[in-house]
């Protein structure tokens, strides 16, 4: 369960958002500039809320009244960025292994094999990120986040930087991932994408939650 109730000022823009999601895949829906990325940056611990609470499965990650702020590296929350952000000086295998090394987890060849199969990236392991296509890069970024064994996976428009053809290429992997049962927060401005993936929707507009519920909230009342 993810509970978010935060406020944050970012220059002229401010976010006041509150929701509690039990869903396996929480879709954060809104136009660009509605505060989606800032909101998940707060969940990831990269951005500190001015006020409020963020809790995951009963553990408080942020509580401004109690001065609690768990730093991002101790949250065990995976983050897949829109621009992949693979480490350019490491090859694909080393990128995939990074989270395991940093969290001092034991080697788990079985899990690694499963993830590389799931995402079809086994043949890319020796390559540098600069030699990958956009779609391949995004799949490696997904694998890298998964292999750090996160409690929650944040996906910030993972298809946003890809053209239509590539989107169709990645979407099935995301659906497979959802069916693996890892809780996710999926950010998108594309209602069709969220209809395929999300189980619950948080709709954001100008930094505020305007609707919350099942995927049906994506369909405007006629």
């Amino acid at each position, binding site marked *: 369960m993810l509970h978010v109730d935060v406020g944050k000022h970012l220059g002229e823009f401010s976010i006041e958002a509150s929701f509690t999601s039990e869903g396996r895949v929480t879709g954060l829906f809104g136009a660009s500039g509605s505060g989606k990325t800032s909101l998940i940056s707060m969940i990831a611990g990269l951005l500190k809320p001015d006020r409020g609470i963020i809790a995951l499965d009963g553990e408080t990650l942020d509580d401004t009244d109690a001065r609690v702020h768990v730093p991002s*590296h101790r*949250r065990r929350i*995976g*983050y897949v960025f829109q621009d992949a952000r693979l*480490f350019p*000086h490491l090859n694909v295998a080393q990128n995939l292994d990074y989270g395991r090394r940093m*969290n001092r987890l034991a080697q788990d060849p079985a899990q690694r094999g499963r993830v590389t199969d799931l995402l079809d990236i086994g043949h890319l392991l020796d390559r540098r990120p*600069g*030699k990958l296509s956009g779609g391949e890069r995004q799949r490696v970024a997904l694998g890298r986040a998964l292999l750090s064994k996160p409690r929650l996976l944040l996906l910030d428009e993972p298809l946003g930087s890809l053209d239509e053809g590539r989107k169709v290429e990645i979407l099935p992997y995301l659906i497979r991932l959802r069916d693996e049962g890892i809780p996710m927060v999926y950010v998108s401005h594309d209602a069709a994408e969220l209809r395929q993936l999300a189980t619950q929707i948080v709709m954001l507009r100008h930094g505020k939650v305007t609707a919350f519920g099942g995927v049906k909230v994506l369909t405007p009342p006629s």
Partner: protein
Amino acid sequence: MRAIRLSFEAIDRRLEDAASTLGASGPWVFLTVTLPLALPGVIAGMVLAFAKALGEFGATITFVSNIPGETQTISSAIYSLIQTPDGDTAAARLVIISIVIAMSALIASEWFARRATKRLHGN
């Protein structure tokens, strides 16, 4: 110094954020992401600083003077040789040596700088 600072500033902060969501604490982010990415630039800067130190004349003469075998640098040795009768050939030899050193430092620095760019683009 400027080259070194620039190479650290060129590192994408967003990569450091990515590292921290993968469980790397501040010092680990620096050791595994920031430093390796900045390293070729740091070396390029150090090579340039070395080449520049070779040409230093004023500060050397002023503070440690020009004692052969102790504080004499290539440029002050050239200066002394020019002042000496029949020192021209020896001076010319040193000039050629310093040109070679300066050129190789420049080439090395350029090579490292190119590697730095390549590294940042992940090729």
